[in-house]
């Protein structure tokens, strides 16, 4: 069953029956996931080059690796700082089957004499093209609003002045980690739907922070867990990998992720039965330019999805940055793959460490950092 179907089923039949009869619940999410990127192995030219600086369609990729490997980050902008075109857009173009211009320069060595190359590559010509995202699929996130007198352009979208709107970014009850709040079935080695292909969870996502405030049922009320994921870019689809632009912020990659959750026991069934009215997020004023913004109040996803919330006595229209339409598509796509035997569930090789904390960066002396 998809997570949406499962919640309905639990409502009518109770947790006990659902736990007994349902094997797997499929979840899904599609949203802007900035800590994404892809690495490539381009193959060797003749004469060969040890690529020191690499650009793909004018967007610089990190090449501080062996000779012809490079990592292209989603938020890297092209050389003109054009926010309409960043690493995310190059990744989308590649997934669409387009050829992109590869330029590389080097200093030349005895073993790699060539100093520059200017050519075209596509997913057909490269050896490896692997999506490797170090923080995706956040378990809950902030709700953003703006108390100031001017429009703010943020990674949470366009925020109108004087609490003119509020934006949020989670698939709520359909979101993978909100259905497995303590990461019992999602861990290292979990096979997932990634960008239209099958991928894997490789590690906890960066900033993994399970110790945030939770509801009595254990559902985190802030950005908590996240996933580091990997998958073959060559198998992915432009329906679920999209280059995005957030005006005056930069570029980001729209990534579709789905995770199947095995209903191991009643506790798991209860966790997967969670609905939008039981999931809460904090509202933050993004005009506060600090890392520790104050929480204006907490709000449920049913309120957020109703299209309007109340902030300081004002009716504020809400927007999602996470596509519910695509999240539903992913959950049902994953369900049918499982039914056809095309998608095998994996038990995590190792569970995530629950003692991780999210530390800040301060300006310190060498001694203080020791």
């Amino acid at each position, binding site marked *: 069953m998809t997570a949406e179907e499962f919640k309905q089923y639990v409502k009518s039949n109770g947790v006990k029956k659902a736990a007994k009869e349902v094997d797997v619940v499929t979840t899904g999410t599609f949203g802007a996931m900035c800590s994404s990127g892809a690495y490539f192995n381009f193959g060797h030219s003749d004469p060969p080059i040890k690529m020191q600086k690499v650009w793909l369609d004018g967007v610089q990729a990190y090449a501080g690796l062996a000779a012809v490997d490079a990592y292209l980050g989603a938020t890297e902008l092209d050389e003109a700082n054009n926010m309409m075109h960043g690493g995310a857009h190059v990744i989308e173009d590649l997934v669409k089957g387009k050829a992109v211009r590869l330029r590389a320069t080097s200093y030349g060595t005895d073993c790699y004499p060539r100093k520059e190359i200017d050519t075209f590559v596509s997913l057909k010509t490269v050896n490896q093209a692997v999506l490797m995202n170090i923080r995706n699929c956040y378990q809950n996130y902030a709700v953003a609003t703006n108390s100031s007198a001017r429009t703010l352009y943020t990674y949470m979208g*366009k925020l109108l002045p004087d609490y003119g709107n509020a934006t949020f970014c989670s698939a709520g009850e359909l979101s993978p980690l909100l259905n497995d709040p303590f990461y019992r079935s999602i861990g290292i080695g979990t096979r997932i739907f990634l960008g239209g292909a099958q991928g894997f969870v490789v590690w906890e996502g960066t900033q993994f922070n399970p110790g945030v405030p939770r509801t009595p049922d254990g559902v985190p009320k802030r950005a908590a867990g996240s996933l580091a994921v990997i998958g073959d870019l060559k198998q992915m689809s432009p329906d679920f990998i999209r280059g995005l632009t957030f005006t005056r912020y930069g570029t980001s990659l729209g990534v579709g992720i789905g995770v199947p959750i095995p209903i191991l026991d009643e506790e798991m069934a209860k966790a997967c039965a969670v609905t939008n009215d039981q999931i809460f997020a904090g509202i933050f004023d993004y005009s506060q330019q600090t890392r520790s913004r104050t929480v204006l109040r907490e709000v449920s996803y049913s309120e957020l999805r109703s299209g309007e919330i109340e902030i300081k006595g004002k009716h504020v229209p809400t927007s999602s940055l996470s596509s519910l339409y695509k999240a539903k598509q992913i959950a049902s796509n994953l369900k049918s793959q499982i039914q056809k035997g095309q998608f095998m569930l994996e038990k995590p090789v190792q569970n995530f460490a629950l003692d991780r904390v999210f530390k800040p960066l301060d300006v310190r002396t060498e001694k203080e950092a020791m």
Partner: protein
Amino acid sequence: MKTKVVLNFSPEAANTPITHNLIMKHGLMVNILRAEIDEIGGKMVLELSGKADDIRKGIDYLKASGVGVRPIKEGVRRDDELCTHCGMCVSICPTKALAFDPKTGKVTFTEEKCVACGVCIDACPPRAMEILI
């Protein structure tokens, strides 16, 4: 009857009090939803209310005065291939032309409600919205 139109006019036509004439000569109620003028001419989005016949005559008058008249539908376009239905546009759209349909999870675009204000253009992450006027 009510209708929304997008007007484009040359610098010469910009000097004619066309809104005044629509009201005084054609008995129409005019709501100016958007108006701008620069060196290459002017653009306006108007909502015209009145009898169907008067609206028709008013539009004929505009055309005869050298003003380009287009239905609002041609003001803003959504590229359905690009739209991911995230919903960013929904809370900033002043007329609710862009709205979330909880049944399908899709964002609907009702062109008749659009006043071509353009607020959605730079807010759309996949850049699916385009302003044509």
